[in-house]
């Protein structure tokens, strides 16, 4: 067993490289997913039939197809005619994860916006606010607090989803532990892998929890936090 830990020590630089890839894909994919989720989520509730239809088709398509097949498509099909688009594996991974989880997130965004009480919408009308002002200044800040728990779930799923990128030649953390298995044991290698994923997930979840508490505190609910700096860098 002590041999195993020695081997683990030898693998450490490679594990850290793999970890970096995993974290990059998670954070990059999540940022892209949030942008796509907000964009599609807002578009899915506009009056214009064509725009709303477009959003619905994109959401249903990326929710309804396998992430692995989406990655294969982007990686193997796009370089061929008539597309002739060559993307690096990392970019393919980011786009695939961003679109897939963005489509799920769009439903979260849409649902949260619809959950803001009707009275809030009516008050913005009574104050003659424009549609943009209403969304940016009143509705979205309230919907944000509602959507964080579900977005947290998606973020954890996205982290775990990054492991599938080994199918498009990316050497992420899972790929390294897959290698290490040969020099240690299946049990040892994969147990360490599980623990590392769990720790990252736990850290992300904790950060999202703080974000949620800050968002609800801004709405005057829940416990006020004094340690989390707000956008201006001032502790609230």
């Amino acid at each position, binding site marked *: 067993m002590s041999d195993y830990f020695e081997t683990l020590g030898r693998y450490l630089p490679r594990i850290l490289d793999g970890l970096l890839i995993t974290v990059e894909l998670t954070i990059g994919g999540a940022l892209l997913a949030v942008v796509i989720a907000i964009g599609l989520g807002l578009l899915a509730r506009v009056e214009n039939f064509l725009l709303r239809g477009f959003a619905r088709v994109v959401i249903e398509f990326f929710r309804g197809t396998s992430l692995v097949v989406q990655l294969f498509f982007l990686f193997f099909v796009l370089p061929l005619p008539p597309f002739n688009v060559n993307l690096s594996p990392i970019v393919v991974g980011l786009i695939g994860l961003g679109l897939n989880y963005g489509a799920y997130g769009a439903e979260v965004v849409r649902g949260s916006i619809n959950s803001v*009480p009707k*009275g*809030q919408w*009516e*008050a913005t*009308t*009574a*104050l*003659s*606010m*424009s549609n943009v*002002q209403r969304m940016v*200044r*009143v509705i979205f*800040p*309230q919907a944000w607090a509602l959507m964080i728990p579900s977005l947290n779930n998606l973020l954890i799923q996205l982290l775990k989803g990054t492991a599938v990128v080994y199918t498009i030649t990316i050497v992420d953390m899972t790929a390294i532990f897959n290698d290490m298995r040969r020099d240690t044991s299946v049990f040892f290698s994969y147990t360490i892998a599980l623990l590392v994923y769990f720790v990252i997930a736990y850290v992300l979840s904790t950060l999202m929890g703080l974000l949620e508490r800050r968002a609800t505190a*801004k*709405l*005057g*609910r829940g416990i006020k936090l004094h340690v989390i700096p707000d956008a201006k860098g001032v502790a609230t």
Partner: protein
Amino acid sequence: MPTESDPLGELGLHTGAVELADGEIPAIRFENVVKQYGSNTVLDGLNFTVRKGDRVTLIGPSGSGKTTILRLVMTLEDSTDGYIFIDGQPLTHIEKDGRRIVLKDKYRFEMRKRIGMVFQQFNLFPNMTVLENIIEAPVHVLGHSKADAITRAHELLEQVGLPDKAKAHPTSLSGGQQQRVAIARCLAMDPEIMLLDEVTSALDPEVVGEVLGILRNIAATTDVTMLIVTHEMQFARDVSNRVLMFDAGRIVEEGSPAEIFDNPQEERTQAFLSAVS
């Protein structure tokens, strides 16, 4: 003669029961207004006129269409048929070549600025402080400078008896305090018409008086036109100069508060008043 301020050329042809002076333009005029929800007709060809500076209270059993009238004036909902005029100008629809045409959003937006509403459930924005609630629309809708808006907001908070609550969060205030902030927020827009929709119905009985006192004060010191839906008959008597009794989307009886409350003529008005008092 159609003019820019009178596109239908129908001013003075009011169908309500109010005597208008020559050339007087009423604050609000409903002309054959119909409102249906599915097959349920809430307002059925309603006509009435509100003069500028009038304080009109709408009374009647629930479901009689009172709140619907306020919601139509605030453009929270669209009428099914008929026309509404604010200061002689069409609010949401216009008649052209015998057809009912909906007006553009941009036009409605401008009309809406002249009207303010206070809601039963206050509807303050929980993501903003009291001060931010009050200055939000004056700054971002009317384009006032932030400094001016803040000065005015402090005056209004003084007026509603909450000078020390500017930085408070709405959720930390009592219902009565929240409603007073909502009144200040409405007044900050300097509306020509103020709509009060059962503003004390969600309040504890002991704070109803303070909210009504503030509204009495506003009624006494400004010339804002008020359209009031309330179950507080004493308030209606104190503040309004006209009372309309509604039942099933129609005006059953109307008159001065003294006429309606002390000497109601219609059986339905008598039954309603004895039920609520």
